[in-house]
């Protein structure tokens, strides 16, 4: 019986993240438009876009191989599984014990690998540019992410996200400069991974500096809808990751009652809303970077992660 309840909550989380993903992207778009004193699209426009794309005919280039058709589903599946592993409203859900933070990084890395392959598959020059840039940024962002994972694991004693989140909720965290560094590093990595403004501009595909949009330029119809949904899901995943580690308040700890989990769900939605508005404000107030400055920017995340781990090492040796 308990198994079935756990399974139900796990399925609830998986539907929740996917249902809320277009809403978060829509919220960011609306807030950005309002900050620019434009009216902006309605909040639910992202859902309509996805439905419209899914209904349209998918046109595949003559030069595309079988890989091109498979990649959207692969990317979406990997991202969705990764999102199912992050504690959103409660820790200790059924799936969370099967994989840890390193597995989540690996899943996202696999998704990135296949997307870059698909970008090069058709053989247009734009796809190649996008893929090479994505690989460049990924080569900086992934080590940074791994170092952040090490920092968190040193603090909480586990790479298991449920354990980390439960430790962060408890009062014995204390005041740690390493965690602040890890937070800043994680935010930088999240911005780079989701192609948000200092790194890539998600609102246009008419720029020579585009990265993600360049890779998926050849996709149309349902393939494009799936890839867009996966990108929205990735944003939710990173926001949930930051929320469950650094703002875990309201999170229901494992074996909590149903009502505690409902409170957790409400708190989670509030956190997503706040994060969406904060992201929109940040993106409006900053200019996009030159592509060759991005490795410096993401390298700062790597440096912060390393420094955080070093400082943690010092304080652990001394105590």
């Amino acid at each position, binding site marked *: 019986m308990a198994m079935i309840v756990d399974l139900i909550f796990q399925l609830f989380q998986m539907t929740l993240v996917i249902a809320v993903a277009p809403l978060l992207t829509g919220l960011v778009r609306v807030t950005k438009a309002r900050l620019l004193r434009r009216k902006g699209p309605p909040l639910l426009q992202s859902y309509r876009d996805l439905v419209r794309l899914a209904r349209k005919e998918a046109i595949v280039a003559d030069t595309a191989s079988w890989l091109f058709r498979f990649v959207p589903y692969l990317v979406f599946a990997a991202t969705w599984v990764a999102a199912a592993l992050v504690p959103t409203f409660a820790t200790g859900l059924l799936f969370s014990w099967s994989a840890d933070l390193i597995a989540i990084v690996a899943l996202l890395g696999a998704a990135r690998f296949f997307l870059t392959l698909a970008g090069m598959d058709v053989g247009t020059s734009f796809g190649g540019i996008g893929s090479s840039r994505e690989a460049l940024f990924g080569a900086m962002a992934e080590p940074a992410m791994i170092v952040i994972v090490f920092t968190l694991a040193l603090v909480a004693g586990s790479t298991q996200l449920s354990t980390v989140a439960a430790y962060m909720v408890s009062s014995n965290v*204390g*005041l740690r400069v*390493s965690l602040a560094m890890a937070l800043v590093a994680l935010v930088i990595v999240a911005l780079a991974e989701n192609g948000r403004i200092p790194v890539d501009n998600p609102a246009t595909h008419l720029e020579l500096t585009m990265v993600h949009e360049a890779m998926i330029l050849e996709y149309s119809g349902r393939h494009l809808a799936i890839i867009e949904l996966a990108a929205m899901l990735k944003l939710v995943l990173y926001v949930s990751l930051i929320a469950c580690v650094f703002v875990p308040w309201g999170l229901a700890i494992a074996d909590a009652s149903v009502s505690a989990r409902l409170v957790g769900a409400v708190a989670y939605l509030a956190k997503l809303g706040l994060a969406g508005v904060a992201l929109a404000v940040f993106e409006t107030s900053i200019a996009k970077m030159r592509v060759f400055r991005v490795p*410096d920017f993401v390298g700062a995340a790597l*440096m912060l992660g390393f420094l955080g781990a*070093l*400082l943690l*090492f*010092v304080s652990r040796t001394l105590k």
Partner: protein
Amino acid sequence: MKGLSFDVAHLLAGGLVLISFLLLYQTRLYALLNVFALQAVVLSLSVAWQAYVQGADHLYLTALFAFAFKAIIIPVALHRIIAELGIHRDVENVVGVGLTMLGGLALVALSEVVMLRIASDAGVLAREDLAFALSVVLLGMLMMVVRRNAVSMVVGFMSLENGLILAATAAKGMPLVVEISVAFSVLVALVVIGVFLFRISERFETVDAHALDRLRGRRG
């Protein structure tokens, strides 16, 4: 209380090391000066916390000196010098930012390994501050090595001196006379450096230190 006093000291000293990295990362001169002023503020907070923990009142005076000289007087003076020389351009690094960062990380790791072993019989707070102080000193030296602009070399030198103050406060029983004389010697150094900067820019029409290589008869 024990845990909290250590955590706050760790936070402030770790912040100093972090700001040293920000100095290395920063590529604009005015922003560099602002970050340097921030480092001085964090340093004075750190010294004041040591004064509170050790119960040593004269350290409050050191904190005050550090704040007045390094967070206000020196940045303002350097601002004026830059405005006077008309050199508010980007700073040029000898090597890339990424390589500098890696070098900096290696230096921090080195100083942690060395200091945690050497000072093993000192108190916890002292060991921890000494380890971070050595990192700040080494990062300041790294900054003087990797920058070509004379003004940012000066900033590197001053941040190196921040590390020395941190080390001095961590070691108990440093007499006040020594600290005051160190603080004033930094001011004297600022005056001397200011004069040199003007002389260099007069003679070579730039503060790029590579221009000085001409004195040796070849350009590096």
